[in-house]
């Protein structure tokens, strides 16, 4: 694959290393509230990157990723309950993670076949329906304890506060999402997915195994989202249908990606950072108007910057280069 991908520049590694170092130091300098913000940005920004594994590459916009989020949370949480208090919380979390991943894998593979045959808006609605079904099931059958919710034990390790510990866990997941995204982009699979996103029928005609590729992206995206759900449940200490099967989680993943720039690796993170800071910090105190302002920001971004912030930066950058080019000419 080195053949058509340029090697990653040393500068890129240096920058990433620096950022990672800074991220590792943050929990020891930030106030708990700001740390919580950082947690949310890492978690939802990371999951937005995971969402774009499918949505950014193939243009299959899933409007139901909260299905996997909730599936992960509930499967790990219920298993934790079953395993009982004799087992340590960390071990229960680990086993729960494995269980959630396996379950999500099965579910994703099961619906991928029929659902990925749909295009565009129909795929979006089908995923929305899937998410609603799972949410309803969790609420309807008492076994899931979805309506009342159930508590999860507190995870503590390495002498860290809970807030700091989960920051690191979310950071880990974020890095995992980034790594998968970048690896995918540089792989043959990724090229194929981008082709599918541009013109699926032509891609199929040219011999790209579209069904298989879409399946892989779908499952990857689902599993990463489910892991996010497991960690989120443990960080909240409480799982209920109303907190993990939420349509606004699905919508936010899309929104963050759109805001930052779909198809870029930095975009979803930037989008998440902006929206979370906006809604929690700036609008957090505006008791009456915050929904209206969120809606206004949403509309403004869609109309003024449909390619997201990264798209804007890209345009500004290329405009600068063109101007420099003209000046030289």
């Amino acid at each position, binding site marked *: 694959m080195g053949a058509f991908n340029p090697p990653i520049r040393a500068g890129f590694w240096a920058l990433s290393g620096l950022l990672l170092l800074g991220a590792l130091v943050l929990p020891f300098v930030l*106030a*708990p*509230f*700001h740390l*919580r*913000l950082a947690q*949310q940005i890492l978690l939802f920004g990371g999951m937005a990157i995971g969402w774009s594994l499918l949505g950014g590459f193939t243009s299959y916009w899933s409007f139901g990723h909260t299905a996997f989020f909730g599936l992960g949370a509930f499967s790990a949480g219920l298993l934790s309950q079953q395993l009982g208090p004799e087992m340590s919380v960390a071990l229960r979390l680990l086993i729960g993670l494995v269980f959630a991943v396996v379950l999500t894998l099965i579910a994703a593979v099961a619906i991928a076949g029929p659902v990925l045959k749909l295009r565009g808006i129909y795929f979006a609605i089908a995923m929305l329906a899937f998410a609603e079904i799972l949410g309803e099931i969790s*609420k*309807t059958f008492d076994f899931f304890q979805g*309506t*009342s*919710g159930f*508590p999860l034990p507190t995870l503590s390790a390495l002498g860290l506060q809970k807030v700091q510990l989960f920051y690191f866990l979310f950071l880990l997941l974020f890095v995992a999402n980034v790594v998968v995204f970048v690896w995918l982009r540089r792989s043959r699979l990724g090229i194929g997915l981008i082709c599918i996103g541009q013109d699926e029928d032509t891609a199929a005609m040219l011999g790209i195994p579209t069904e298989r590729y879409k399946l892989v992206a779908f499952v990857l995206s689902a599993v990463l989202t489910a892991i996010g759900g497991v960690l*989120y449940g443990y960080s*909240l*200490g*409480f799982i*209920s249908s*109303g*907190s993990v099967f*939420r349509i*606004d989680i699905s919508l936010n993943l899309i929104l963050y990606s759109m805001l930052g720039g779909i198809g870029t690796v930095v975009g979803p993170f930037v989008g998440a950072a*902006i929206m979370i*800071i*906006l*809604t*929690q*910090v*700036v609008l*957090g*105190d*505006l*008791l*009456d108007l*915050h*929904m209206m302002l969120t809606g206004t*920001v949403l509309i*403004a971004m869609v*109309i*003024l*910057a449909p390619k997201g912030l990264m798209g*804007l930066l890209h345009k500004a950058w290329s405009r600068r280069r063109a101007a420099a080019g003209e000046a030289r000419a």
Partner: protein
Amino acid sequence: MAGISRRSALGAMGASIIGSAALGIRRASAQSGGVIYFGGSLGMSGRYAETGLNIRHGYETAIKFLNEEMGGVEIGGKTYRFELAIVDDASDPARATALIQRQIDKDMSFFLGSYGSNIVLPCAGITEAAGKLTVQVGASADQIFQQGYRNIFGFFPRASRAWATSVEFFKSLEPKPKKVSIIATNDAFSKLNTQAAAAGCTGIGLEVLDLLQLPEQVSDASSALATIRARTPDILITTTVDQNSLVIVRQMIATDTNVPLLYQFLGPQLPAYRESLGSKATGVIMQLPWDSRLAFSDPIFRDSKSYVAYYNKNNSRPLSYHTVGASACITTYVEAMRKAGSLDPAKVRAALAATDITTAFGPVKFSPEGDGDPILMGAKIGQVQNGEVQVVFPTEVKTANLIYPTSNWSTK
């Protein structure tokens, strides 16, 4: 969009966002000078926004009275004014916990809980861990008071004990009812109350005929009502929130589904409910945590009558029992602070646990786990009669005689 280029519009937006963010981050510390902040969140958007607004008005009224009519309160030799710092949690536990944490970071120590057990429970965990206090009028799930938390207090008895008065009421009915059916919705609040109600009824020998569970948002109860028509109980209980209760009762009227006694847990307390049904509302039973005719003395407002007068002078929104309860939360806090003579959370906590006062809302006393004392703070039973709410049980405090059995819808 003509005339304004996209770039300048974006630039302006970005600048205003950064500007307001900068303003937001620079805020004064919470316990400066002589001001005490009450922190907390309420669901101001979402299904419980109506109640959230009622509660908020209660807080604001009490604080306004303390600041303006009394010029502040003297605690431990120093005079303090009060400020409310409530945020909107949009009924999202993630948002609620983050915003509460922010307030804790700003050194707020005294919290007022949100509405809804699924929000109050995680938030209680956070305030407990930080050693801060919560007094709330919005959640009564048993779970909250079974975690071993010492810093949370609730104004209602826990859900499993909240039906004591109602069960006594059923026992007192003549002719003796034999069968009861319950319509519930698929949410935590309804489920908890259904369990408690069913257990209480079975305990006094009533047969629970049918337990019908509807989806969380009720738009159509036709199948449940068909079952009720086929197997009619003596008492029909609906443990539903106001909107759902109204849908159910309106459909009952429209399908001519009659029962000797209809008990709607939430709903008839609202003026909008009674207005919507008109004369047909007569006979519907409800839980009545508070009624303006029940006279209580109050250490801050003097008595419930003066409270009601002050509230109506300063608010156009009609009074609901949540409003009075919310004001009483503040009263309880202030009394505990006065008694403790300090703002140290541990001392205030001890004073709260020992609270035994009467407020405009009624007596306030907490059980060892923090929920309301089931006898002193249990609800009364009310009945709609000619568009007004009357207290019909316990008989010592009744304002009108009970109508039982109630007549058919068509005759009302």
